[in-house]
Structures are given as structure tokens and as C-alpha cells.
């Protein structure tokens, strides 16, 4: 009964909710319809009315530039960083949760402290390390620090999930003579699939959209990733806004696909990881 009273339609809240929907979606809508305009149309049409003669010229222009190269770079960087982050963090969270000594508590503290370190403040030393290691202007230069800075949050979230795996399961495997590596591979890995998908999508999104590391650690066009490419498109096509916005749409499509596929996991997983 209390539930039904609580669910009574709340009209002011509903109206405010739809207003925010407009705020959230109008800019996205604007980007999509503007990318379909011709360059002349951009200067004369009403920007919020869809073009009467949609044109894909901007998309052609973007795809004929080196967009596909930047796309491949972004995919390599994102996959590389996510693989490193998730596999190292899974092992570390196993030690944090299943470890017995003082060391596991200390490890946990290191990663909690790590959450508070702002990546932006470390760019000068990171730049120094990367140049000293002769990795400047390579994709690896983006992958390594991006993965490293994703580790603390990933460990913390995975540890939260791992604590919920019942001890009996570990015990019964131990009785069967399994070591920690086998438990990690054949017990933890399958049970934690949803959690792993969550952190992989979340970390992937961060790396895919990351701007600062690519900006300071790469330079040449053939090592460029998408966010940086958008920024340089903007300098290159200053008068051709529809083309710049077509690049924005194209760079977001892979993420949108991932969001549609993994939305349920992402939202429920993140809320479980953050919300406790």
C-alpha cells in the first residue's frame, strides 16, 4: 500500500524531468542535424530545424581524410589499456580480498590513496618518464599511463564485487586441491563476468575519450587518437562546421554501440561499485 502512495504520479517532477531531457538532448540533436547540412546551409538555415536536403558530403569528407587511421589508433589504445588494467586489477583485487596478512590491507590502502591522485597534476613527470623511456610519440606512450591511472578505481570496484563471492566456494575448491591461480581462473573469472564487463566498459570509455595523455605524449598525425583528431579537425576545417560535427558523430558511434549493448551491466554494475 505504501508503495502505491509513493508511486502516485508526481506532475511537477515529471515536467522538470522532461525539461532536463530537452537540456540533455538538444545539443546532441543539434550535432546530428548540423552534420547533415551543406556548408552553405549552415550559414543560412535555422540551426534547430532539420535540413530540407540532408547531405552526407561532410561524412564523405571526414572519411576521406585519415579518420580511419585515427579510429584504428583509438581502438588499439583502448583495447590495450583495458586489457592491462582489468587483468592486473583482477589479480590485485584477489590479493586484497583473499589475502590474509598485513600486506593485503596495505595494498588496499595504496589503491584507495591512488584514487585521490589527480592525473592532471602528474603530466610533467609522466612526460619525462615517457621521453626517457624513448616511447614519446608512440601509442604505447598513451596506453601505459592511461592503464595505470585506471587501476586504483578498478581494483576498488572489483574488490567490492569479489567480497560478495561466498567463502564456501573457495573452501570447496581448496579441498579439491586447487591453488590460488586455479581459483582465480576457474572460480573468480566466471563468477565476476558482469563486474568485469562493467569495469571494462567504464575504463574503456575513459580511455576512448581521454585527451590529456594523447595531447602531451604524442605529436605526429599517424599516432593520433580520435579526441585529439577532433581537436585538430577543428583547426583544419574552421569554416566547415558540418564536417567537424560529422567527425564528432563518427567518433561517438562506437561508444554508442557499446552503451546500447552493455547499458544494463554498466549502470547496475557502477551503482553497485560506487553506491555501497
Amino acid at each position: 500500500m505504501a508503495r502505491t502512495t509513493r508511486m502516485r504520479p508526481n506532475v511537477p517532477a515529471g515536467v522538470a524531468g522532461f525539461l532536463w531531457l530537452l537540456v540533455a538532448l538538444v545539443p546532441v540533436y543539434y550535432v546530428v542535424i548540423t552534420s547533415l547540412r551543406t556548408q552553405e546551409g549552415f550559414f543560412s538555415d535555422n540551426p534547430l530545424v532539420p535540413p530540407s536536403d540532408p547531405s552526407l558530403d561532410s561524412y564523405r569528407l571526414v572519411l576521406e581524410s585519415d579518420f580511419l587511421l585515427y579510429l584504428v589508433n583509438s581502438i588499439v589504445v583502448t583495447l590495450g589499456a583495458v586489457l592491462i588494467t582489468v587483468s592486473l586489477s583482477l589479480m590485485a583485487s584477489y590479493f586484497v580480498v583473499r589475502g590474509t596478512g598485513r600486506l593485503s590491507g596495505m595494498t588496499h590502502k595504496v589503491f584507495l590513496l591512488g584514487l585521490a591522485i589527480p592525473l592532471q597534476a602528474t603530466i610533467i613527470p609522466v612526460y619525462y618518464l615517457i621521453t626517457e623511456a624513448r616511447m614519446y610519440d608512440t601509442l604505447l606512450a598513451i596506453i601505459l599511463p592511461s592503464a595505470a591511472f585506471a587501476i586504483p578505481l578498478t581494483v576498488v570496484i572489483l574488490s567490492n564485487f569479489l567480497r560478495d563471492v561466498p567463502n564456501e566456494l573457495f573452501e570447496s575448491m581448496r579441498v579439491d586441491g586447487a591453488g590460488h591461480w586455479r581459483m582465480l581462473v576457474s572460480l573468480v573469472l566466471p563468477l565476476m563476468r558482469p563486474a568485469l564487463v562493467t569495469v571494462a566498459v567504464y575504463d574503456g570509455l575513459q580511455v576512448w575519450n581521454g585527451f590529456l595523455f594523447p595531447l602531451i605524449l604524442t605529436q605526429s598525425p599517424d599516432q593520433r587518437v580520435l579526441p585529439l583528431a577532433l581537436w585538430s579537425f577543428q583547426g583544419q576545417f574552421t569554416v566547415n562546421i558540418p564536417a567537424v560535427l560529422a567527425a564528432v558523430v563518427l567518433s561517438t558511434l562506437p561508444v554508442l554501440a557499446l552503451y546500447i549493448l552493455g547499458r544494463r551491466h554498466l549502470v547496475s554494475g557502477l551503482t553497485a561499485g560506487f553506491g555501497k
Partner: protein
Amino acid sequence: MSITQREERAVPASDRDRTTRPAHRSGPSVWMAMPALVFFGIFGLVPLGGVVALSLVNWDGIGEMSWAGLANWATVLTEPATYHAIWLSIEFMVVCWLVQTPISLLLGVFLAGRSRYRAVLGVLYFVPMLLSAAAIAIAFKALLDPNFGMSLAFGIEALSQDWLGDPDLALYVVIGVVAWQFIPFHTLLYQAGARQIPAALYEAATIDGAGTVRQFFHVTLPQLRYTFITSSTLMLVGSLTYFDLVFVLTGGGPGDATRMLPLHMYLTGFSANEMGEGSVLAVLLVFTGLVLALGLSGLASFRKGSQMEGM
């Protein structure tokens, strides 16, 4: 993220394991955590010390370094530009928090209600989370263009201002765009928090005759205080250190109207090639960020006792 909250959970867990498990059953070896620790150590902890060391040298980013002692510190601490950047960062941080917190809180509580249309709205609200800061900055630059942007859509004179070119407006425009980018994430946190409030509390409040508004203030708000601290910590530290969107949207301009601390640090280090002075600014940034994060999580643990009794 409440830092202390997690620590306290971890320690009793390992205590329990130690007492119930016979001694010969050993836990996993620390080597399992080593790769992550080493990796994070190299790129996270070493740079934290490195930034202090680099603040004591002259370096242009390419050539040889030379010892500078405290000269960079003296330069940075006597420059008005430093205080301007710090002041802007504080203003940005506070206004961002004031704008984003009420909206995220209300939207989060709204989305936590279980009805079909709210679930659909929720999916659509999160779309801005998918865009990169560079993409968002480019989109809003076009939308806010005084000649071809929104002004052309409505023909309203007030909309055709030079939003990003007016030094008095630019900071607030940046704050607005940042709010558009981050409110979805904080809405998600508040939604999760609100869903964990036991339904029994609302039932009791209804029996006592409390309406929706009183329930919000007397049940929902007090129950959300941990979410509030988590969200506020992420929001304050995040906006103190935010770089990407400001860099693409304004580049610090017009003039130095949006040249906040992180951007000032980047431009000093990588554009003016004064890595030493940039590192001094980075030390200031790390220090403020850590104090803020630890202070806020201290606040969380200080108030923890009273929260737990009610549960």
C-alpha cells in the same frame, strides 16, 4: 568514494579469516598484486615525488636540466598570474558544485522512482556521458556561436552574445557546459543511493502523514548523506583538476578569463616550455586536491557512527 568506509570493511574481513582458518591454509601471495602495484607505482606514485623534484630544476622539456633550487618557487609565488589561476579554480569549483549538486540530487531521486517512463528518461539522460570532452567542447562552440548558433534559431537578440568571447561571461559558460557533461554521472550516483533507502522508512513516514515534500526532506535527504559526500568529493576534486573541456572550449581565454590552475600549469609547462615552473603549479594542484579529498573523506568517517545506529 568514501575512503575510510572501505578500509574499515577490509580490516575486519581479514581478521575474521585469520581466526577461522587453520594456519597451514595460506592466503595468496603478494606477487599477485605486484604487477598492479608496480605499474601504478611507476606512473602514479613516482610522478607524485617527481613533480616535487622537477619543481627544483630548469628544464624546457627537451634539453638538459639544470639545478634551480627554489628559484621556480620564488617566480611562481610572486606572479599575479598564479593567484589569478588559483582564484579562478576556486570560483569554478564552488560554482560547479552549487550548480551540479541540486540538479543531480533531484534528478537522481526522480529517476529512482520505479516507473516505466522514468526508466526511459534515465537511458536518455546518460547520453552526454558518452561524448568525449573534445566532442562536447566542439559542439557547444558551434551552438554558442554568436552568428550561426542558437541566435539564428530563435532570432532573440539576447542569445546572440559572444558567449565565449566575453571575459565576464566565459567562465560561467564553461561552468554550464561542464554541468551538462557531468550531471548525468552524479545523477547516476544519487539514483543508486536513493534506491538503497529501505521502503519501510517511507511507509512509516506515510503512516505519520508526511507528504512527498516532507518525505524528501526528512527521509530521502538524511539517508543520502554518504552519496552526497561521495558525489561532492568527486565533483570538487574533479572540477579543481579539470582540463580537457576548458582547453578545447576556450584555451584559457578570452585573455586569461578561464585560465584555471590545471590549464595554467599545462600552458606554463608545455607551451611556455617552463617545466620547472609548471611543476611548482602541479605541486600546488596535487596538494590542494589531496587535502580536499582526504578532508572530505574524514568528514564522512567522522559522521559515520551516528548513521549506522539508524540502520
